[in-house]
């Protein structure tokens, strides 16, 4: 068996008498940065609370570094788990300075080591020298970084992050997610982030578990989630795209309104089967030299590129990426070509 830092087996959880997590299993490798991605209400926050030890299990087990933490019958108390957590509402202790906040979990450490650890972390989060400030004197992003440092200070075996960036503005959010990733990677702490924001998950995680209605749909790298989603839900949740009708022709090809499409892996459908083909805007690219044309019906300028909506001759409307300088007018015929590496096909 491969070594796992966090291992969750067949978990079942209830929140206010409603079963919201069922038959849930997940494991994280040491030093891995995992993410639970799902719409609000899918049970991901309750799961975090269960891992932290604030939530009773109905069934299943939670292990951390080969130590059994939770079963339905017994729970290691939160304070003895070696799990750290960063909260959505930051939850810094308002009556303590930054240094006191970060040192809060370092009970029993000698004074000199404690000071050293605090300074080390303040430097890591880029707030050196602010030891004596109070939380309310900092901006939201700074506060969240201090909360991270506080959770990391006692060197937990696992760090949980409960939508830690959702209170911040969009631009800061993406930047902080990558920044936190760098900090955690440098410290080598196994972590689990919970979020409903797909970009945040991509910025942060090594592997992402997409959750829906209390179970995992797919647990994979960001790249695979985007390019090889295992279900229509995952396909739509991690990025834009459209379904079009298609029919399986051979083991590796389908016929579609865009013609016969082929890739280099088996599709797993019998020839002749009616299927749905999922196409992302980056599968269809604008190319003035292409013979194949479509009518431009909508466009969204995104700065670095355009996102076009084009109608094919058959009436199907698809998203299409175009270079930033190609500023065509709506109603114009524009050339498009396909750039497909994987065919994403679902049963109809």
């Amino acid at each position: 068996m491969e070594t796992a830092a966090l291992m969750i087996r067949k978990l079942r959880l209830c929140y206010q008498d409603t079963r919201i997590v069922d038959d849930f299993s997940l494991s994280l490798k040491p030093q891995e940065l995992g993410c639970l991605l799902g719409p609000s209400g899918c049970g991901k926050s309750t799961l975090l609370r269960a891992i932290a030890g604030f939530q009773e299990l109905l069934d299943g087990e939670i292990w951390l570094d080969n130590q059994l933490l939770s079963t339905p019958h017994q729970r290691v108390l939160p304070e003895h788990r070696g799990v750290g957590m960063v909260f959505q509402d930051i939850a810094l202790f308002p009556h303590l300075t930054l240094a006191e906040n970060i040192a809060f979990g370092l009970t029993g450490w000698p004074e000199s080591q404690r000071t050293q650890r605090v300074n080390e972390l303040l430097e890591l989060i880029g707030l050196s020298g602010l030891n004596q400030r109070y939380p309310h004197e900092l901006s939201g992003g700074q506060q969240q970084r201090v909360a991270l440092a506080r959770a990391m200070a006692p060197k937990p075996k696992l760090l949980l992050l409960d939508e830690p960036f959702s209170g911040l503005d969009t631009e800061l959010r993406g930047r902080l997610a990558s920044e936190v990733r760098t900090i955690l990677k440098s410290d080598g702490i196994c972590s689990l982030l919970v979020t409903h924001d797909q970009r945040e998950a991509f910025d942060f995680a090594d592997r992402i578990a997409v959750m829906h209605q209390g179970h995992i749909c797919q647990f994979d790298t960001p790249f695979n989630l985007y390019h090889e989603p295992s279900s229509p839900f995952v396909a739509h949740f991690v990025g834009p795209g459209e379904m079009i009708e298609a029919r399986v022709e051979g083991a590796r090809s389908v016929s579609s309104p865009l013609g016969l499409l082929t890739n280099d892996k088996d599709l797993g459908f019998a020839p002749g089967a009616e299927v749905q083909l999922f196409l992302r805007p980056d599968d269809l690219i604008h190319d003035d030299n292409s013979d194949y044309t479509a009518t431009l019906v909508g466009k969204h300028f995104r700065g670095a590129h355009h996102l076009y909506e084009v109608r094919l001759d058959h009436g199907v409307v698809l998203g299409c990426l175009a270079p930033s300088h190609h500023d065509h007018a709506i109603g114009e015929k524009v050339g498009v070509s396909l750039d497909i590496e994987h065919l994403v096909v679902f049963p109809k």
Partner: protein
Amino acid sequence: MTTVVAALCVALPVLVVASFVITGVSDAWNHLLETLLGRYALNSLLLSAMVATGVVILGVPAAWMISFYRFKGRGILSWLLLLPMAYPAYILAYTYTGVLDYSGPVLTAMRELNAPTWAMDPLLNIRSLPGAAIMLSLVLYPYVYLLARAAFMDQSANLMEAAYMLGQSRSRVFMRIVIPMARPAIAAGTLLAVMETLADFGTVQFFGVQTFTTGIVRTYYGFGDTVGAAQLSTLLLCCVFFLVIFEKSSRSRVRYYSDRLRKLNQTSVTLSGWRQSVAQLLCVLPVCFGFLLPTGILLYWAFFFAELQSMWSLIVSSFFLAGFASLLIVCVALLICYANRLYPSTWLNYATTFVGLGYALPGVVVAIGVLIPFGAFDRGLSELLRPFGVEPSLWLSGTLIALMFAYLVRFLTVATGNLTSGLSRVRPSIDQSGRLLGLSQMGVIRKLHVPLIRGSVLTALLVCFVDILKELPATLILRPFDFNTLAVKAYELAGDERLIDAAVPSLCIILVGLLPVIWLNRSVTRE
């Protein structure tokens, strides 16, 4: 569990009182119904209507001026306007009666100046229903002022500017935006004032206005009719509960209007000339008659006429009683709040809401509701112990226990309210952070909650302390024989027409009562 017990405690007087509705009617009740009930109801209604008008007239214009205009003295007036809150209405009544007495300074001066009788008569007749309404309005308008001011200041400047951009004049913006948006807050403040009016005993009793509260006491003591008193109490309770419901619903609408938009203060208009004088006058008048004038008179009396010797023991016993009772109340409140936090359930929630009704109970009703079951208990116990040669005695009623219990019923909400708001600022994630950083549940309380809610515990203690010090009817009815407090002493001296001697106990109550008002003002302005 604790909350359920506490809820039952609060419910006990209410249930006892209400249970008499089904026990049938006494002879005295029929008599009451024929002769006095109509008068009680009419007087209470008239008084409430007058006070409601009075507090709006005094409170809203002042709040308006303070919120929307800059003028000389605005800063100091904005908090001076709160000071009448320190006064119990009955002390104001004693003071004005003393001043406006036939031989008092005002009327003596008027006679010397040959003032016409039509000018002197209304002053002489201060001891009347309109007089009581004026006294109550003068001490209760700060509720309206405070809530209206908060509502005015919470309104976003953006909204008003949006209205100006749509071509509306200043006065139309006022009538169509500002006033409608503040209306729920004004209504809530007025309802609070009316609730206090219905609960008032000291003022109406002194002025000889027959309302529900004086009726209850008279039925109980005068006619010795427990059932009648309880049934009158139930009627009063019904009125109060309707008001509570109205108040809650108007308050729930208040919330919609506070958001995080730009606040109004920056846009206020600077006044000068006669406009400034009008604004100053609107703010000075309530302060002057509600606080400065009566306090000046009380100080003068206390300084030149009163002898202080006998007061020391009175102050000590009052402070001891209030201190001990508020400690007890805050302890119980802490238990309830923690039960709610650690083991939340819908059951607990209902129980807590029920506990919240305590403050709306008039002191007279609480006293009767405590006296009836405690008296029954005493009689039962005496009966039980008689065979053993134990003399019949008042085991509970007429002891400090009964009084403490009544205070607990009446003022528990004050404490839970303060503590809940304090604890709610300590979000669950703070607790969880503490746990994950190695603290036990007790450790979380000791190292995080204690420092974080210390302020609200102190506030709760202070507010309870002052409320108990001011409380008159329950203390009067339930106190042990010969046990005196400042409030009771002031009442007794006033009853003996020794109004000047009542000045010292009155002043003590007011001076202590100022502390939470100042505290309140600080917390309001900090927000």
